[in-house]
Each structure stands twice: as C-alpha cells, then as structure tokens.
C-alpha cells in the first residue's frame, strides 16, 4: 500500500498508467497481441516486438526533444532533419542495383549523424546566440530542410540495395531483436549516464526555470541552450538512419513526416511541461512507446491512416486534461469529499458534496 502510494505520487505514474491502459485494451481486443514467436533463424516476432521496433526512432527523437523543452524551447525541425539524415546516408551508400556500396556504410552513417548535429547546431545558434524564438528559429529548418534533402537526392527516391543497410532497422543474423532496439537502448543509457554522472540535468532545469538567475549563478546559459539543440540534432540524425533503413530508401518528402509532433507529444505525455523546467526522460521514453502503441492499435482495429490524427488528437486532449492543474484540483476535491463521506455517514455532508458537484 505504501509503495503504491509512493508510486502514484511519482512522475512516472501517469505515463505508465496510460501505457498500461492501452496494453490491456489491446490484450482484450486484438487477437494474439501478446504472442511472441521465434523464427527459424532466431528472430523474435509478434505485435509487441513490432511496437518496440517501430517506436525506436521516436524514442530517440523524444530524448533530444526532452532537453530542448526543458530549457523552455521547442524543436519543430526534427522531422525535416530526419529526412536530411536519411538523404545523406542513402546518397552516400548509393542506389546501385548490384548491391554494392559506393562508400563504406560506417562512413555514410557517421556523415548522416554529423549532418544532423550540424543542423542542431544551426538551430542552437539561432536560439541561443541570436535569441530568436525557438518555434520561429526551428521553423526555418523545418520548411527548408526537406528542400535540402530533395537537393541531395536530386528529387528522386533513392533506394538502397546494399544488403547490410537493412540491418539498422532489421535483424542482424542470429540476433533475437532488431538492431534499432539496441540503438535506442544505447541512446537511453547514454542519457541516463549523462544525467547520473554530470550536472546537465541541474543546468538544463535552471535555464528552463529562470535563465536570468541561472546566468547570475555562473551558468553559461547560451552554451547550455546551444548544446541541447545540437543534441536534438544528433538524435534526429540517428533517427534518420533508422527511418531510412526501415524502407531501405531516402524519401525526402515523407521521411520523418510529422515526427516532430509525435516527439513533442511523447515528451508532454511523459510529464514534462512545455513551459520548461523539470523534465522526465523516463516519462518521455514511455510516452514515445505509448504513441506507437496507440498507432499500432488503431491500425489493428482497422482505423485508416487518414483518420489516425483524429484519434491521436482525442488522446492528446484526454492526457492534457489529466495533467492540468485545474483538473487535478477538481479530482482532489472529489477525493476529499468522498473521504469525508466515508468517515461520517452524515447525510447532510453527503447532500452538500453532491450539491457542490
């Protein structure tokens, strides 16, 4: 009971509940939702693996977005940066029909992530140094980014036939789980270590809560802001690798489309306020998985892709309501009034409570 109480007060409570509700719903209504099978070559498959697999790139984006939002900024360019990263890695490996890579895949991958970081640094420069509002600053790359990707691919969809490229979002031989799950895990671990071993959390929160006071305390506010955008760019770069590997192609128009919205939503779901300050990395990860579960569920229930946004919007409204202070106060009052009812069976109190409601 005590542990339950502790948990219900913790920041992870709401995100976990939201995810659990979805999972339970799925278990009840989607056939074979929990079944996991193994193929002959040792790969696991099933709906759960699928959800995890598909949420990886979103998890990674959400990691970067969490820090940006914690500084009370926002990065709406990540979707476009995913497209750029995809374009870089695919053009460098090349679309040769005979399945030969024009450049070593590792070089191509590094270059793509590097370009992602550059994009992030550009955003960081605009926001931190030139003090342009984050939405406006990242809007530039959001709109221009896909154009840049188009230029790289010369307006074509580059399909990569080089076999190892599939491995990023698929299975390495004899591995039970797809590679991108390990990539996401590594990124989450990296962030966890940074949080544990450095003061990045303290600095980011200080900047998000009160930048003036942070500066007076000696924190290099410009640098902190610059770094969070650069990191967000890095995350988008990595996501770009996964997204392009999934379809084995670079599609400048559609790669990472609307992913910035999902990433922001994941962060919000995770309990981090868009006004900045306190942030919850674990919450963002769960938030990302929740969104992917929602998407998969809707497809499983036969909701078409065009209707999906409606369902997501409804989910957002519910979640925001749950998190809003006002709603919480109302809930607390309701709980309190119920409590007093239980205590004394006084009808007058009951009547009053009902009236108040």
């Amino acid at each position, binding site marked *: 009971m005590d542990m339950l109480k502790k948990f219900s007060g913790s920041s992870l409570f709401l995100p976990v509940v939201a995810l659990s509700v979805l999972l339970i719903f799925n278990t009840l209504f989607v056939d074979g939702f929990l079944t996991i099978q193994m193929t002959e070559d040792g790969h696991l498959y099933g709906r759960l693996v699928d959800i995890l697999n598909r949420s990886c790139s979103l998890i990674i984006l959400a990691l970067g977005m969490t820090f940006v939002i914690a500084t009370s900024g926002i990065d709406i360019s990540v979707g476009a940066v995913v497209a750029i990263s995809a374009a870089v890695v695919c053009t460098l490996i090349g679309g040769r029909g005979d399945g030969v890579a024009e450049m070593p895949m590792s070089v191509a991958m590094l270059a793509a992530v590097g370009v992602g970081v550059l994009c992030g640094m550009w955003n960081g420069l605009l926001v931190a140094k030139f003090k342009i509002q984050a939405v406006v600053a990242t809007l530039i790359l959001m709109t221009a980014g896909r154009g840049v990707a188009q230029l790289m691919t010369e307006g074509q969809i580059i399909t990569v036939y080089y076999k190892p490229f599939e491995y990023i979002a698929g299975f390495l031989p004899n591995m039970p789980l797809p590679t991108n799950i390990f990539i996401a895990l590594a990124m989450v671990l990296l962030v966890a270590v940074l949080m544990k*071993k450095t*003061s990045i959390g*303290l600095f980011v*929160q200080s900047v998000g*809560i009160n930048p003036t*006071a*942070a500066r007076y305390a*000696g924190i290099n506010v410009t640098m902190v802001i610059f770094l969070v955008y650069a990191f967000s760019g890095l995350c988008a770069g990595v996501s770009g690798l996964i997204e392009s590997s999934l379809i084995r192609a670079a599609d400048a128009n559609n790669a990472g489309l609307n992913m910035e919205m999902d990433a922001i939503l994941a962060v919000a779901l995770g309990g981090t306020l868009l006004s900045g300050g306190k942030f919850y990395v674990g919450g963002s990860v769960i938030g990302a998985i929740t969104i992917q579960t929602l998407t998969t569920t809707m497809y499983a229930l036969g909701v078409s892709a065009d209707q999906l946004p409606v369902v997501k919007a409804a989910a957002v409204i519910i979640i925001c309501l749950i998190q809003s202070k006002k709603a919480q106060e109302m809930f607390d009052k309701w709980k309190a009034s119920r409590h007093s009812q239980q205590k004394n069976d006084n009808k007058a109190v009951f009547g009053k409570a009902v009236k108040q409601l």
Partner: protein
Amino acid sequence: MAQALLEMRHITKEFPGVRALSNVDFTLHAGEIHSLMGENGAGKSTLVKVLTGVYPRDGGTVFLNGKAINPKTPKDAQDCGISTVYQEVNLCSNLTVAENIFIGREPRKFGMIDWQTINQRAAELLAKLDVHIDVTKTLDNYSVALQQMIAIARAVDVDAKILILDEPTSSLNEEETAHLFKIMRQLQKQGLGIIFISHFLDQIYEICDHITVLRNGELVGAYETAKLPRLELIAKMVGKDLNEVKDMDNFAEKSVPSDEVFLDAKGIGAVGKLNEVDVQIHKGEVIGFAGLLGSGRTETAELLFGINEINKGSLSINGKKLHLKNPMNAMEQKIGFCPEDRKLSGIIGDLSVRENIILAMQAKDGILRHIPYEEQVKIADDCIKLLRIKVSSREQLVKNLSGGNQQKVIIARWLATQPDLLILDEPTRGIDVGTKTEIQKMAISLAKQKGMAVVFISSEMDEMVRTCTKLVVMRDRRKVAELTGSDISSDGVMKAIAGGAA
C-alpha cells in the same frame, strides 16, 4: 467598542511538512492601521493569502462586518472589498502601466475599452503617489520600486473596505514611502482598515496604531503600538526575553582591512550605465556602496561581477589585469554576488533548497565534475544550520519559502563557493530585525576571520554605518566621495551626496 471590520478566528493552515498557521486570531477595526509582525517565515504572508483566497484555509472562520465570508479566489476577496498588494509584485511585465492598473476593470465606452480614460486616470492615480512616468510604456521598463508603486496605485484605486500591504516599502526610498504613508492616512480617515506588513520598525512605529505579533505560525498577541516599546516587540517576535534582545545589538568591532589589495578598479564604466568609478578593495575589508536608488551602486557591482562588460577603464584583481566577460570569469577570481532582485535573478523557484545552494559551486566545478549527492546534502545542511534557514526539509522548493528565507538561500549559495570577495546587494531587504543584525555581523566576521573582502550595498544608512570600514558614495552613476574612519556617518553620506550635486 464598535463591531470589528474584520475578525479572523482560529485560523489554521498547513502545507506539506509545515504548519504555517495554527489557531491564529486577528481583529481589524475600521479606520485602523494594523501591523502584522514576525520573523521571516512566521506566517504573515500566509495569513494574508488565506484571507484573500490565494490558499484555502484548513480551519477557522473569517467575519467581515460580522458576516462570515469565505473568498475562494483573490477576485472573490476583491469583490468583498479586500484589496491587496502581495509581497511578490504580481503584475504583467509585458502590459503597459495603465493596463496593469486597470486590468479586469477597464472603463468602457459603447462597449469598447476606453483607452483614453484608462491612460489619463492611470497617470492621475500615479501622480497622487508623486510618480510621473509614461503610463503607456510596458511595465518592464521600470524598476522594482516603481513597479511596487504601480501595484500600490492599483490597490488603492479599488473601492475597498480593507487594504492589505505586504512589505510594500521593501524597495521604496524615504520619499516614496512618505507619499505612500500620506495616502494611507487619507484612506484611514475615510474609514478603511489597513493591514501593513514591514520589517522596518521605524515605519511601524510611525504609522501603525496596533500590532499583532506572530511567531512560528502562532499568535503571540495583539498590542497597541503606543504601549509596546521596541525592544519588547522584538523580544516577542523572536521569543526571547528582554535582556537577551538587548545583547543582540551589542555589535562586534569592525574588521581591520589588511594592506593587501584584492581588487583595483580604475575609472571603470560602461556606456549608459556607469561613468568612470575608482574602487579599491582590500582583503578583510567591508566596503559599502552608498547612495540613493539608481545612483549606480548596483551597476558598479554588476561590472565587478561580469554581468555587464566594462568598456572604460581598467580592472585588476590580485595585481593581475583582467577583463571580465561573464559571471564565470568573476567566479574564477573567487568573487560571489548576491543580486538585489532575488525573484528575478536570484532563486530558481522550482528547484529545491539543496539544488539552489549548490548551484554556483556546481557551475564553478563545471558540468562534468558532478558534486556527489551525499556531499550536496552535507553542504546544504551546513548552510541551513549556519544561516538558520527555515525550511521543512532541504528538498523543499525554494519558491515555497518565505521571502526572507529565500534571501538566505542565495547568500548560502555564495558562501558555499568560499569566495575571496562577496558582493551583497541589498542583502537585508525583506529580512526580519533579528536576522538583519545577524547578516551584518556575518559580513564583519567573514572579513575578520577569513580575510574575505565584502561589498555591502544597502539603502539603510545605519546598517552601512555599523558594518563598513569604507564607504564609496555614489550619485548620478558616478562616485562622489569616499569616507573612512570617523567620517562614516549618515550625516557624512548625506553631505557627500548633496555636495555631489554641485
């Protein structure tokens, strides 16, 4: 006696971990100016906020003119006739002055907001307080003091039965305070009941008829000002007996500065902020920057801490010529700075007391050298004990501390970095009498025992006179005199300021 205007009975308020008010009674009559007194964290602001519906109360009843009231929001309270200026000025910095004064009750003409009337009446209102500013400019153009005047103007304009002023004078100068008092007396004659909170005893004795004393959230008693000598009041506030309080004022000897120069500024200035100023700061010296509000004291301090860059003159520290580009540069030279506006540039409200205390240390150590949690705990606990910061736990959010205790947290933040030069800009603003002397004594003992140099900036002349071994007197953003030894007195400073006019 006539029926009381306001009666609060058995008021109780609990926050997680603290009982901010327990069983407090308070009575206010019409035409009375009544002070709430108590140490930092005694519960004065909480009592006000419970009365005005900012916080719901956990127990007790409130009667206005004999009728029980229960305002749920500040708006409710206003509709009942209770007008309030809260301790933290809560105006909108991006609205104009006039908009701030009339927000929520804009005069209308044919259904449209009547801007002309708003601006005109706002200007008239402020003129009554002898404030003459452009009311169509946004609020952030004006200093904290002016913002406070604007908040007051807004409150006194509302048609009210009760006016509550929670430390309205903390950043006002004497003249501004005098204007406020004039208006308060007018309102008193009109039959308003006024609740006035301040840590300035002089002001309390000047304007209040009655005093209610709180300590640790409990009522000590209500008294007539004329029948309560100062020392007795202090004794009641701190809960000690009279003799102990008398000892409190026994001041330590001033520090003796060493010959070693820590910082030497020659003709430093910044365009539009400060004209050439010379300052020499020795180790073990408590040096005061005296002058009126806006005379350039804070600006000088900010240059010494690298908040703004110096673009005239030269600065050397420990004999080395330096150019400070940012606060970190100054911190590397072991300089610390408690800024004057603690809400804007001091506290990080949503972080805990512990995090706020170790923040500057951590910034200095760098992002990679994370201070282990156990060490943070130890540093925080030491500071809390040393400065007697009133917290329910070290993990309490700083924004939930009382004003004076927030100030102490900022001082703790800089003491933790063990600076060679500590700049204290208005460190005793909003601090209770007892703690005020403690902070002054602390400044002296830091200089004496650790050989620290301390810059002390304060608008209260007598605390400067008591603590400083050298006074730099400023006027119109330049230095007009330097006083040492027996020249240090209120008169001396006043003369120097007046002389600077010529």
